[in-house]
């Protein structure tokens, strides 16, 4: 590991890093526009110039590779002056429409100006007039006046999607990002362009003019919409001012994880956040005939436990069925196994999942659930939810609203009518609601703590990024509550009071999760 000196600080850094990466790794940020960790250095914005002892000119931090003994200055007057001059150049031809620009608040140009610029503009000439609303892609608007020509977008389309849709047209001051007239950026990763554009040149129609970024609260999460488990950031309103009271999440962004999704997420995951707020179950109800009674989970848990207890007591374990799905966390699937199968001897475990979609060669998988691998590794023996097998049961606990998919409504109705007691734990409304006795709202992945195992077997813990309000109960807690009510292995389950505690048990008991 070469030892270098950054601003007189001796640091040891990994071989092969560039100065910019090396400095970043020890907490010294070097301003940059064109550099992006996903691509080889481009060296065009000239923002990252630093002073290297013994060299006459300033050198690029983004492309100079560390060498033993190198002495770098990142804040010398010469360096700061150079940064200022790059900012002055960029701003000379940049519109002053920050007040109406979606990027304001997270714009590199704005941030660096605050940090290194703060000069009075000396530009007296007319700025170039350029297209401000060029439709670049399905969700993308390009404002060519704001573009600083870092070519991140072009390189993304060349190197990541390999669709090569865009390029730089014209020359010199007339250079601009362009696409073929007959074309249009329309791929499943196009949303990343708005995210990697360091300024407000590429904006996302889904987010454009909806809010200001400083009102948003950013929370880390895992995308549950396919089995890749891309790491994401959910930007939601912290409360004030909520222009759309029904909508909490304004934007989903990629969060870097080089082992899973690099710097990207697919558009299916990026724009698929409506489910967080739409169509949610919001009331815990008990239905008798046409009558619906609201009740608390505690009450519902008592009723259900009573029912289970009597069946188990009569050795009618085989007349209990549990429908599971693979959007449950590792912890929940583990608990389902330990409570129902091992604890109560219930053998009829079914799996009802959303149908697969089309995967692509990159991140999106055909499996549109988050935790099939987790189910496999927990080792739950599940069977297909054959309606014949369901019908005639005395008690059916249905997790998830997916049972309704793929069966004809009338068949499902007939089958469920022949089940004495049916409780549905679902995050979303569905055709099942009218067919069951209990509807118990549950949180989605974004609203609970736990872990998921992605398609490659990577276990990814996460914490709730959004709060789960209302009548319902998280599945892991519901399972623990039932276990407690039923006095199943009290000593064992009483220690598992949180997803973290459950995960510890999981790690101890199942080698895969070590």
């Amino acid at each position: 590991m070469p030892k270098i000196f950054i601003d007189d600080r001796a640091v040891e850094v990994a071989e092969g890093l560039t100065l910019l990466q090396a400095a970043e790794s020890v907490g010294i940020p070097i301003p940059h526009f064109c550099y992006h960790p996903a691509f080889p250095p481009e060296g065009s914005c000239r923002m990252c110039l630093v002073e290297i002892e013994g060299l006459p000119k300033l050198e690029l931090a983004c492309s100079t590779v560390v060498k033993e003994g190198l002495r770098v200055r990142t804040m010398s007057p010469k360096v700061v002056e150079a940064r200022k001059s790059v900012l002055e150049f960029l701003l000379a031809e940049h519109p002053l429409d920050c007040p109406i620009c979606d990027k304001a608040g997270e714009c590199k140009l704005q941030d660096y100006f605050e940090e290194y610029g703060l000069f009075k503009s000396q530009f007296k000439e007319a700025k170039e007039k350029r297209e401000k609303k060029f439709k670049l892609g399905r969700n993308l608007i390009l404002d060519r006046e704001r573009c600083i020509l870092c070519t991140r977008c072009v390189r993304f389309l060349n190197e990541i999607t390999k669709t090569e849709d865009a390029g730089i047209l014209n020359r010199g001051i007339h250079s601009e990002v362009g696409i073929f007239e007959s074309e249009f950026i329309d791929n499943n990763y196009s949303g990343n362009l708005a995210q990697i554009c360091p300024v407000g040149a590429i904006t996302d129609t889904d987010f454009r003019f909806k809010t200001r970024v400083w009102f948003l609260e950013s929370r880390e999460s895992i995308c549950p919409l396919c089995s890749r488990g891309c790491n994401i950031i959910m930007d939601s309103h912290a409360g004030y001012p909520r222009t759309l009271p029904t909508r909490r999440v304004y934007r989903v962004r990629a969060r870097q994880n080089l082992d899973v999704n690099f710097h990207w997420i697919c558009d299916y995951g990026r724009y698929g956040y409506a489910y967080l707020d739409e169509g949610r179950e919001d009331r815990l109800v008990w239905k008798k005939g046409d009558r619906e009674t609201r009740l608390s989970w505690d009450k519902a848990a008592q009723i259900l436990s009573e029912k289970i207890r009597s069946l188990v007591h009569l050795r009618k374990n085989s007349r209990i069925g549990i429908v599971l799905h693979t959007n449950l966390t590792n912890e929940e699937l583990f608990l389902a196994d330990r409570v129902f199968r091992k604890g109560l001897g219930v053998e009829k475990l079914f799996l009802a999942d959303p149908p697969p979609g089309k995967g692509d060669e990159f991140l999106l998988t055909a499996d549109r659930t988050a935790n099939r691998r987790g189910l496999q590794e927990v080792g739950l023996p599940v069977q297909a939810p054959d309606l014949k097998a369901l019908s005639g049961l005395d008690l059916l606990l249905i997790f998830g609203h997916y049972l309704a998919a793929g069966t004809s409504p009338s068949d499902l109705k007939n089958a469920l009518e022949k089940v004495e007691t049916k409780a549905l734990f679902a995050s979303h409304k569905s055709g099942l609601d009218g067919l069951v006795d209990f509807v118990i709202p549950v949180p989605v992945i974004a609203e609970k703590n736990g872990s998921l195992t992605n398609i490659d077997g990577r276990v990814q813990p996460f914490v709730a990024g959004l709060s789960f309000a209302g009548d319902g109960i998280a599945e892991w807690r519901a399972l623990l509550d039932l276990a407690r009510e039923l006095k199943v292995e009290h000593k064992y389950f009483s220690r598992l009071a949180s997803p973290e505690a459950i995960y510890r048990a999981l790690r101890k008991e199942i080698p895969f999760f070590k």
Partner: protein
Amino acid sequence: MDEKVLTRHFGVEGLFRIDVYRGQGGYRAVETALKRMTPAAVLDEVKRASLRGRGGAGFPAGVKWGFVPQNVPKPRYLCVNADEGEPGTFKDRYLMNHNPHLLLEGTIIASYAVGIHAAFIYVRGEYEAVALRLEGAIAEAYRNGYLGKNILGTGFDLDVAVHRGAGAYICGEETALLESLEGKRGHPRLKPPFPASVGLFQCPTVINNVETLSNIPFIVQNGAGWFLKRGLPKDGGTRIFGVSGMVKKPGIYELPLGTKLRTIIFDHAGGMKEGKQLKAVIPGGMSAPILTADEIDLPMDFDSLAGAGSMLGSAAVIVIDRETSILDVLKAVAKFYSHESCGQCTPCRIGTAWINKIVKRLARGEGEQDDIDAIVRLATNIKGKTLCPLGDAAALPILSICQKFRRELEGYLPHA
């Protein structure tokens, strides 16, 4: 001693034809090199000749060839830089038009020395006639066994192709040239890596100017000692000076390196036109910082001009008379670089355009007191901070004009 080397036979009728060229001793150097010398011996001779690149930067050709790795399992390429875009420069056009086989001969020998089997001549887009002439010469060379497989029975193979540019100055910059040759936008590449290791199609590549390569046959045929005698110890051979502007006899003059600028203008180019008086000289193409009339006793070689804060560049001597407004000169320079900036990097893309806007405003009579300071400040912020040397090529002449002719420029500002 007849000083001329490269242009010596220019008067010979039909020199561009292979038989005439051979009649003047042409292609003997190829025989010498390929049949009697090892590649290493050729390389060594070129190194000892202190032949510095004629394209602008003056890098020693032999040293450059020596950088090319011989042990990588990739083809190596030679690119002949015939883009000749530097304003004021027209020497390569003469060389290729009059004596295309000389360039081919140099190309063959250089390729032999470096172990290259494919060479491209990148010709300026506007040089259509030159391209045709080169293609004719190449066809002749193939027919006569100087190109193709097993050249002169020596087992050495070489193919040469002509590629025409599309009229961008930046494509004369060696890495932009490579991009352009690969069919991409002529955007200079970030260096390192240098073309000698990662060049055309990611393969080791030598890029040399037309005039540089045209010297090779003479070095091989007459030896480095002979060549050095025609120039300076650290700067061997002659240079073709392309003189333009307010002189009686504009044109190309092949003279030993180190010839005084005064001699070039007043003895060879016939002095100033009737009634005109010398005001300034741009000594090495538009990219070279300007010299005043007092500075023309400088010897014209790379080091002397660098010492005087200018550069020999492409040795295009642009002579400016007193009646020519320095603002017009500045306008031409600012406009050219703003127009030719590839636009890739921030300081050059925006800085050259900004300066151009100020200069245009100045020329419209709408100057403001701090305009010259602004131009100097902006050019200083371009200098040394760009991706390719075009930034400096723009900033340095502009700075020199503002410094050396500040009084005259101030005359264009509104009076306080």
